[in-house]
């Protein structure tokens, strides 16, 4: 009997993950010694860590390194998404401090958990083995359950965590079953092997086990990206979770879900595109429509953004349906833009919320526009971007998503998409109606805008506008990234 020799592995592909994990662990330790009033420093350190990780990711751009026996890969696709995760995490960290202090749950563990979430998401994006992806997903999910319920004194937060947990675990069951069937059908969990196997099939979609495995996995990811009818957790969880975490959840995990789904479907199941495109067509339509229509009737702004987030997932699914470079690069670009604009919007909500009632109501924005012009302009930019108005990132993103669909010939899908996007304008405008066109019902308190939030707003606004005016700087990377996958 031989000793098991652990093979020499190339750590390069997972350097950012390692770095973040180590940092998170270190912070957990440091946290013990930081007095409760000064937990912000942990946040600052995390933010710096995120930047450092981004640098690490950035330096790896252009390389294609497989490692761990094919369990993980470093490629542009992964790097692009990792950047999105880091951005989301960075912005979320920036807006967390003020909120958490106000809500009196400023526990230092928050930041390490965010970092762990990022590690999980990164693994989802970089994983080339179903197991890696699954575990990445679980790391992310488990952290998110905690983050959603982080404000444990708050019943809504508890409820959000619990709901997220129960439904997340339930969806994990389906996802796993899908993976099991796929494994059974192909004899491997490696994405590349599955692809090889599927490619050998004359008619892969007639292999029922493989097909069912794929479909079940899709439902699992559909849950993560909040596609109808697997979306129902979203509004509740988004509403209940602490606002910065909502912001984070709406951007990061969604992107991660798309990353993993894209990799699995485009690589492993590329030969079955006809099948999954058809499914995504329906999912996209349902998701967009349900999200938008329901958002029309929301007064709670967080809930409204939650529904809108569902709708945005729907737009991304349009790109997914297309499954061509335009559409998929569109998804990548869109998720990046969405990170900017949505977290930006949530940052404003963080500011507007008051202690104990952090969930802004749309009515709370009455008169906001002229009381706090700069913030209101920022909010308007985010909302217009979410609505897909040029010259903002949201428009370019939608443009590419729908272009992908049109290029593929899914004209009607694109039409439904744009009509949805027109309908969505209504509820985004509604916020602006309150901001600019209604008189305030009560006097505004002086809003305290902490430096980190100001920074996050600055980043978000800049990102939203720059990506809207000169999107090439990012789009070309997205294009490159999608080519190599």
């Amino acid at each position, binding site marked *: 009997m031989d000793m098991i020799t652990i093979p020499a592995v190339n750590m390069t592909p997972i350097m950012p993950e390692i770095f973040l994990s180590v940092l998170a662990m270190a912070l957990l330790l440091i946290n013990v010694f930081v007095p409760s009033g000064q937990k912000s420093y942990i946040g600052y350190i995390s933010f710096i860590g995120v930047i450092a990780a981004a640098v690490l990711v950035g330096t790896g751009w252009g390389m294609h390194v497989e490692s761990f026996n094919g369990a993980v890969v470093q490629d542009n696709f992964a790097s692009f998404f990792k950047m999105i995760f880091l951005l989301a995490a960075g912005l979320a960290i920036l807006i967390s401090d003020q909120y958490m202090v106000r809500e009196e749950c400023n526990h230092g563990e928050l930041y390490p958990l965010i970092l762990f979430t990022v590690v999980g998401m990164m693994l989802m994006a970089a994983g080339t083995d179903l197991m890696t992806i699954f575990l990445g997903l679980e790391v992310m999910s488990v952290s998110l359950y905690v983050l959603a*319920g982080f404000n444990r004194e708050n*019943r809504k937060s*508890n409820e959000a965590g619990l*709901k997220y947990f129960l439904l997340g675990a339930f969806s994990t069951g389906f996802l796993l079953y899908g993976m*099991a069937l796929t494994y*059974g059908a192909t004899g491997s969990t490696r994405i590349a092997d599955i692809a090889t196997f599927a490619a050998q099939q004359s008619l892969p979609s007639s292999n029922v086990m493989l097909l069912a495995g794929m479909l079940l996995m899709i439902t699992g990811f559909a849950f993560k990206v909040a596609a109808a009818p697997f979306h129902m957790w979203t509004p509740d969880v988004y509403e209940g979770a602490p606002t910065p975490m909502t912001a984070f959840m709406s951007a990061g995990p969604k992107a991660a879900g798309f990353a993993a789904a894209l990799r699995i479907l485009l690589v492993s199941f590329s030969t079955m595109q006809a099948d999954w495109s058809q499914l995504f067509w329906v999912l996209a339509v349902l998701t967009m429509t349900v999200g938008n229509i329901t958002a029309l009737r929301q007064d709670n702004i967080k809930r409204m953004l939650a529904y809108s987030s569902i709708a945005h997932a729907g737009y991304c699914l349009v790109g997914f349906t297309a499954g061509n470079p335009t559409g998929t690069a569109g998804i990548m670009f869109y998720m990046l833009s969405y990170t900017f604009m949505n977290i930006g919007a949530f940052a404003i909500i963080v500011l507007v919320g008051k202690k104990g009632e952090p969930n802004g109501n749309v009515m709370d924005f009455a008169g906001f526009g002229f009381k706090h012009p700069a913030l209101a302009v920022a909010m308007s930019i985010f909302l217009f971007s979410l609505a897909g108005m040029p010259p903002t990132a949201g428009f370019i993103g939608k443009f590419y998503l729908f272009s992908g669909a049109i290029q593929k010939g899914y004209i009607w899908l694109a039409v439904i998409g744009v009509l949805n996007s027109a309908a969505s304008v209504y509820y985004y405008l509604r916020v602006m109606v309150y901001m600019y066109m209604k008189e305030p019902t009560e006097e505004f308190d002086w809003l305290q805008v902490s430096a980190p939030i100001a920074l996050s707003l600055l980043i978000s606004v800049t990102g939203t506008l720059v990506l809207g005016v000169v999107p090439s700087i990012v789009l070309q990377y997205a294009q490159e990234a999608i080519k190599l996958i």
Partner: protein
Amino acid sequence: MENLNSYLTVSAILFSIGTIGVLTRKNAIVIFMCIELMLNAVNLTFIALSRYLGNLDGQVFVFFVMTVAAAEAAVGLALMIAFYNNKESIDVEDVNMLKW
């Protein structure tokens, strides 16, 4: 060894029973147990397939699933406790402050 399909069928039955449990029970802990049942059904599928394929990947997967189940159990139960602390109940009928 029984043929593969027998095992798979059993796992499918267990999976479905778990699903029904999730859909019908009101107690969060019981729901969680039903989910565990579903996961176990999947585990059975994995191991049966693994054995059939002569490929141990599936079993390793089961190993990880168990880890995940443990992790989820820890966090999930902690969430339930936290919820219970505030609401004195873990009945999902009571978990509906957030709606519409």
